[in-house]
């Protein structure tokens, strides 16, 4: 119990530090959102008026106080551009991102684990060599160089899939596959190496000598490998977030990544803060979840 409490405190501190840093860093960066909103013709009075309205004329410390007060009530403020409710905007923009990230992570985990085990099982056979070559290539084409090539092949040359935008299932295929390729390759590599490490250990020999079938042994080895694979996936989460952001800008998907990018470009403070709050909190939740599953799978990690 105390361990859980310790972790919760740790998560809380991390979230707090993260959103505080963002709050001050984005305000310190050059560029004034109010002047951008009103354009160059705006008089000093108009600028002052809008600043008062948005609460941006207050000293930084009281702005920060107001922000925290709002947060405790679940209020993320209103955007500077267009005066929309940040919470509503985030709710709307979250959907594509969550769909994109969750489907590609799940699929690449399944495909990666399957291929990794298969490659380990067929060690040094043709399939293993071939899959290692493929994973080397997959890791060497970053998302932003892979995506144009995919668009070129599937949308322009073969005319099978739409180039950009979001909506139907057809729109999702290219972005998801683009995100899957590097992640799947990493999962595959880790699974293969971990499988080989375990498959030659003594406990596997014991189970084999007891006369268990190959499939039963495979399942047991897989259970032992899972925590390592999950850990790698959790480390790759930040890569996934960055990847989603780039994918969203490439394929014109109205998600959180493109929202954040535009928010930073326009210095729209509430949007940036909102996205950061949402992403750190969800990151923490996923982190805890993976930790919990790992503990259930491997009781040794509890100590």
């Amino acid at each position, binding site marked *: 119990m105390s361990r859980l409490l310790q972790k919760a405190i740790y998560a809380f501190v991390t979230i707090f*530090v993260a959103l505080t840093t963002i709050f001050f860093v984005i305000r310190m960066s050059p560029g004034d959102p109010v002047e951008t909103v009103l354009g160059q013709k705006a008089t000093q009075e108009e600028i002052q008026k809008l600043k008062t309205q948005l609460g941006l004329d207050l000293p930084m410390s009281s702005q920060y106080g107001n922000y925290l007060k709002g947060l405790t009530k679940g209020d993320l403020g209103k955007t500077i551009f267009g005066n929309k409710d940040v919470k509503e905007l985030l709710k709307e923009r979250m959907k594509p991102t969550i769909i994109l990230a969750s489907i590609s992570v799940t699929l690449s985990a399944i495909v990666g684990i399957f291929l990794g085990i298969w490659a380990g099982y067929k060690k040094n056979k043709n399939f293993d060599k071939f899959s290692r070559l493929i994973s080397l290539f997959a890791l060497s084409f970053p998302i932003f160089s892979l995506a144009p*090539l995919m668009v070129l092949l599937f949308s322009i040359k073969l005319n099978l899939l739409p180039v950009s935008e979001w909506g139907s299932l057809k729109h999702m295929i290219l972005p998801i596959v683009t995100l899957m390729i590097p992640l799947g390759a990493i999962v595959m590599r880790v699974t293969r190496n971990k499988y080989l490490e375990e498959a030659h250990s003594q406990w596997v020999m014991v189970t084999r000598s007891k006369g268990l079938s190959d499939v039963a042994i495979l399942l047991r080895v897989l259970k032992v490998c899972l925590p390592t694979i999950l850990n790698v996936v959790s480390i790759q989460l930040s890569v996934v977030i960055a990847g989603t952001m780039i994918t969203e800008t490439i394929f014109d998907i109205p998600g959180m990544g493109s929202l954040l990018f535009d928010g930073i470009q326009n210095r729209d403070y509430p949007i940036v803060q909102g996205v950061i709050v949402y992403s750190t909190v969800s990151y923490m939740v996923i982190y805890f979840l993976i930790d919990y599953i790992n503990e259930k799978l491997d009781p040794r990690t509890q100590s």
Partner: protein
Amino acid sequence: MGKFTKEMKWGLGILSLYVVWAVSWFFYRYTIKGTIFKPYVPELDMKLELALPFSKGLVLGADLLGRSLLEVLSAGLTYSLTLSMIVTIATASIGILMGYMAVKAPSWFKLVFDLLINLVFIFPSILIAIMIMAVTGQSMQGLIFAMIITGWPGYAKIARGESKRVLSLTYVEGARAIGIGEVRLFFTVIIPAILPVMIVNMVLGISGVIISEAALGFLGLGGSPYSWGAMLSAAKTVLLEAPHIAMILSLTMAGLIIGLNLLGDGLRDYLDPNKG
């Protein structure tokens, strides 16, 4: 120590090709077409806009500003290689120092160290980089600073583990027994012992830096107009008219990354202390 694997030979082969390319561009730029004081810059020529490969006297054709694609590509290569090496060496040095200090320092330092590392790990590094670039403005210094900030925790974690391992070995005790000071111990005993592992990670780190620099360039936050990422993002807009530009760029970048990854993996097998 194992023997040179096939992977490593391929990696070294590919990398030496790139290095020869970069060096010859360097000479071309500073001696043949320009001088040391007035280096040659790829020329704009709107008449050549989007010229196809092997046309108008250009081997790879021209980009959408009419610059020779081969020259722009070479400029990008030298930029990418120098930047990634500077960043990697700086990042690894900071990481090693911090990691070692985390083993030796008082407990409050360890707490701060853990918190810092976790913060950097939790935030997607691209976000931190964008934030820093927003504050410092779009510049080379900002880019290098951002990459160091996001990169050092990775090295620090490895350096901490390695330092812990090395510090528990008997020859460190022996070195202490003959009265070596802390600073000398760090430089003459610890560094040589942890360097092999760090070098493997640095080779893989260079390819990581090349990728993240290009990613930032792609998002319009690069430090140079010759960033491959910025070129790719421009090439993306003319994908219909001139698909070869995006293809050449992607393949050139992928080749370099493949070479680095092969060398890194090969070195890891070669130096792996666990395999004995």
